[in-house]
């Protein structure tokens, strides 16, 4: 496939077109993804999530620079919400990333969620595959950033950084469940502002409240005083908390080094392998569901669920479970309910 070959040869326009192809889920996409797949699995994928106003874009920009300083190539996916009313989107994260302009070792792509609600677009994972196959060694994904419901990132990224900032609400805000449980690392950004130390204390206290399910399904360390962050003696991971001032690059090399430490930990603990296996299962199940559904619909007279069945279910003359069994068995939709 010509586009694939050009992408693998390093042509940036081909990469951009390939990303559009997988994003639009057109007829060529499946073949393209199948072709890309053997060339993936090398990149380390890092998710950056957090409430609006915490400085995610600036932090992604600074992290990319820190990686570039080490000679690593970086792909960035910046996700912003699609308006549920118009279907349009204002993708403004690039504004914060002007430092990376002109750098051939970086590639930035903005994505709109297009209806997806978990903080990423449905096809973000597939765009990661394209960047991975194109050879980018680190892929940073910046989520929409509504704060609490953003759990898509945990299955799209190997390492998830949760960004907090002082002064965005009281300490209880900072420790709401969901987002915090997916953190492998915390960044307290805008750390030059008042309250930064309080935010750090609040996060440490939350860690000290006892073991919780971390991103990779393993109990996080109990965070008792004296416990160093990172890998614990029992093999679990206690998320480190790093203060950063992203717009000045302060604290960012340390954050980068913690990300690398987490990546190494995932490898030596075998968790990386387990993550890949779990992800393979999720992916395959997802694709199978879509394909099975498409196959079933293609068997229907109008290529969609028959109106008679829908009307019978809505009118309570047929229950949806029996309806489903009928459709699966290929029975005539107009057969009366037994």
């Amino acid at each position, binding site marked *: 496939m010509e586009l694939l070959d050009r992408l693998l040869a390093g042509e*940036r326009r081909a990469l951009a077109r390939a990303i559009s192809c997988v994003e639009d889920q057109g007829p060529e996409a499946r073949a393209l993804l199948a072709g890309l797949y053997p060339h993936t699995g090398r990149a380390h994928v890092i998710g950056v999530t957090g409430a609006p106003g915490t400085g995610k874009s600036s932090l992604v920009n600074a992290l990319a620079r820190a990686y570039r300083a080490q000679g690593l190539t970086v792909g960035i996916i910046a996700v912003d919400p699609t308006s549920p009313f*118009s279907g349009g989107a204002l*993708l*403004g994260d*690039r504004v914060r990333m002007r430092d990376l302009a002109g750098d051939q070792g970086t590639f930035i792509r903005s994505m709109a969620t297009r209806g997806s609600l978990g903080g990423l677009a449905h096809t973000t994972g597939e765009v990661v595959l394209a960047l991975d196959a194109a050879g980018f060694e680190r892929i940073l994904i910046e989520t929409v950033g509504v704060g609490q419901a953003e759990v898509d990132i945990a299955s799209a990224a190997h390492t998830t950084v949760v960004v907090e900032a002082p002064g965005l609400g009281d300490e209880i805000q900072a420790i709401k469940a969901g987002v915090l449980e997916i953190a492998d690392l915390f960044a307290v950004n805008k750390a030059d502002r008042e309250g930064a130390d309080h935010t750090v204390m609040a996060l440490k206290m939350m860690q000290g409240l006892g073991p919780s399910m971390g991103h990779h399904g393993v109990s996080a360390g109990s965070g008792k005083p004296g416990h160093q962050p990172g890998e614990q003696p029992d093999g679990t991971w206690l998320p480190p908390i790093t203060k950063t001032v992203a717009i000045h690059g302060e604290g960012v090399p340390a954050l980068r080094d913690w990300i690398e430490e987490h990546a190494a930990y995932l490898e030596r603990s075998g968790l990386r392998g387990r993550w890949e296996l779990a992800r393979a299962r999720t992916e395959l199940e997802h694709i199978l569901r879509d394909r099975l559904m*498409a196959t079933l619909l293609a068997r229907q007279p109008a290529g969609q669920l028959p109106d008679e069945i829908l009307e019978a279910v809505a009118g309570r003359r047929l229950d949806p479970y029996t309806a489903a069994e009928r459709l699966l068995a290929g029975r005539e939709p107009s057969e009366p309910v037994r």
Partner: protein
Amino acid sequence: MTDRTNHLNPLVGPTNGLEPPDGLKIRVLVAKPGLDGHDRGAKVVARALRDAGMEVIYTGIRQTPEMIAEAALQEDVNVVGLSILSGAHKTLCPRVVELLRKQGLDDVLVVVGGIIPDEDLPFMHGLGIQGVFGPGTSTQDIIRFIREHAPRVAA
């Protein structure tokens, strides 16, 4: 592959009432080249295009032609919209058009908004820029122009 019409169903998830019939989004880069810092107009247009169902990549002020062409390539946009109030359009526009061409982005629609004197319109048309929108242009006109002229290439 997820059925891509799922999100068009108004009863399932967010609505996309202004979705074009083929489901393809129009991606527009909105940029302010040069040193001009007045971006309110650009932001008004960016929001109007979003409300018309387009995906707008807003790059901000102080963009060089090189930055604009690079962003257009990475974002695989259908349209590049330049906002120029500084009078430097006769330098900036040719440069942007040239760089887009050099990167193989020949079919990208370039439109320009801002302060472009009437006597410079032939110059702009000569560059291949048909859509020139001066002060007072309604956002609906811009939207209509883009919908009619943007290349609609399925990826």
